């Protein structure tokens, strides 16, 4: 099996607070991998380490076989072009309208003519189910629309790996479903590797090819959706059943 990202013995601590205590994880190329776990287990932090936004305190991260923890800043910047990231709150640039937001990576990294960029922006927005909102400012958009614009921006450069940071959090169930389908469709249509952070169990089991569950700075279980449905791992069982009883301590 080919892996897009591999990380070994990943440690991360902020001051004395240890977030990751040795994470080993491999992300299968071309598949959707969900990273789940209770709040505060450092899922977002893990995501940032995987794409080189944050250096690990200890351990190795390989992206397409290349060790990103020893890369120079310039190399890191280049490497990041292989990533598209959808942030938790979409992280649209407040000072730009929708068009400028989506066109931003294109203007920054390509020398395409204006007409070509226009076409790509319209195409990507159509892909996420939006049209005729190019001139709107991010503040005028609903949460779901912002996420979709964020997604359009993230896929504008057609990255190899898409990272989604809690794409469905804060959305109504219908919108959740729309976003889930978007993730699925994006992956199917573009054939890209996707990593999704979520605590939405339902959509996880529905879409994920592989799931990794994080708890207490470690991966407690890694496997397919089928593995997770049948496992008797107490952590997973407690998390899936949303029960207060079990090994997961409520913080």
């Amino acid at each position, binding site marked *: 099996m080919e892996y897009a990202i591999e990380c070994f013995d990943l440690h991360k601590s902020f001051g004395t607070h240890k977030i990751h205590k040795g994470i080993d994880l491999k992300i299968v190329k071309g598949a959707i991998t969900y990273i789940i776990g209770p709040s505060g287990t450092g899922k977002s932090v893990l995501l*940032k380490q995987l*794409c080189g*936004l944050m250096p690990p305190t200890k351990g190795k991260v390989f992206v397409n076989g290349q060790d990103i923890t020893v890369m120079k800043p310039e190399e890191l*910047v*280049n490497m*990041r*072009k292989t*990533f*598209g*990231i959808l*942030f*938790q*709150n979409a*992280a*649209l*640039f*407040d*000072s730009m309208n929708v068009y400028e937001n989506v066109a*931003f*990576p294109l203007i*920054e*990294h390509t020398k395409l003519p204006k007409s070509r960029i226009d076409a790509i922006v319209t195409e990507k927005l159509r892909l996420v189910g939006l049209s005729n909102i190019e001139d709107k400012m991010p503040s005028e958009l609903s949460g779901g629309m912002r996420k979709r614009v964020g997604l359009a*921006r*993230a896929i504008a*450069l057609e990255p190899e790996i898409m990272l989604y940071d809690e794409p469905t959090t804060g959305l109504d169930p219908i919108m959740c479903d729309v976003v889930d389908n978007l993730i699925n469709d994006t992956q199917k249509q573009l054939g890209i590797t996707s990593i999704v952070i979520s605590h939405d169990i339902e959509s996880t089991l529905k879409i994920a090819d592989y799931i990794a569950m994080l708890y207490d700075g470690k991966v407690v279980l890694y496997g397919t959706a089928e593995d997770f449905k049948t496992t008797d791992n107490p952590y997973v069982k407690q998390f899936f059943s949303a029960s207060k009883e079990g090994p997961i301590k409520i913080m």
Partner: protein
Amino acid sequence: MALLFYSTIKLTFKKPFRTKLLLKQIEFIGANSMSVIILTGSFTGMVFAFQSYIGFHKFGADQLVGTVVALAMARELGPVLSAIMVAARAGSAITAEIGTMKVTEQVDALNAMAVDPVHYLFVPRILAGLIVMPMLNAVTVLCGVIGGYLVSIKVLGINKTLYLDYMYTYIDFEDFANGMIKSVVFGGIVTLVGCYKGYMTRGGAEGVGRATTESVVMACVMILIFDYILTAFMF
């Protein structure tokens, strides 16, 4: 922060050169600060004329008011006051803007899109600060001198010719240039501190507020410290 400044300088010469952003920042830091700068400059000049008149009148050296106002404006008050006003107006806004971008992950988004936030956010602002500050200083000095002139001639009734004569006799290009050099440095300080504090922001909306306050305070303190150092160096 010095490192940040170093990398900003290094990145200044790195392509692409973002003209549009630079223009935007010049507009924001410079053109939009004009009214407050004009007000500050004029009133400082006027007050200074009044105050120095009280002292000089005792010696019967009224006509020296012009010299003192112009000298003080050119060497000291112009650069410092314009820098402090810009710190309060634009420096805080820079911190708030970058701080908000930081806490809403927009800075991460820039990084994620392989755009160096230092290059994208800092360089235009700091460049704009370096370019704009001496211009604002010139406006401040001019307004101060005009304000002082008006008060001295119209209100205090000092001999106009003597006033101007003394002013020109004792002000050298060097005095003005001194102030200009200072204001270039101050422009760098204000924008750099603004960017730095914004970039270091943590902890949501409250953090942005805190960073903004810190930015203004730090910029003002650094302006005064550097004012001392520059003055000590240049005399």
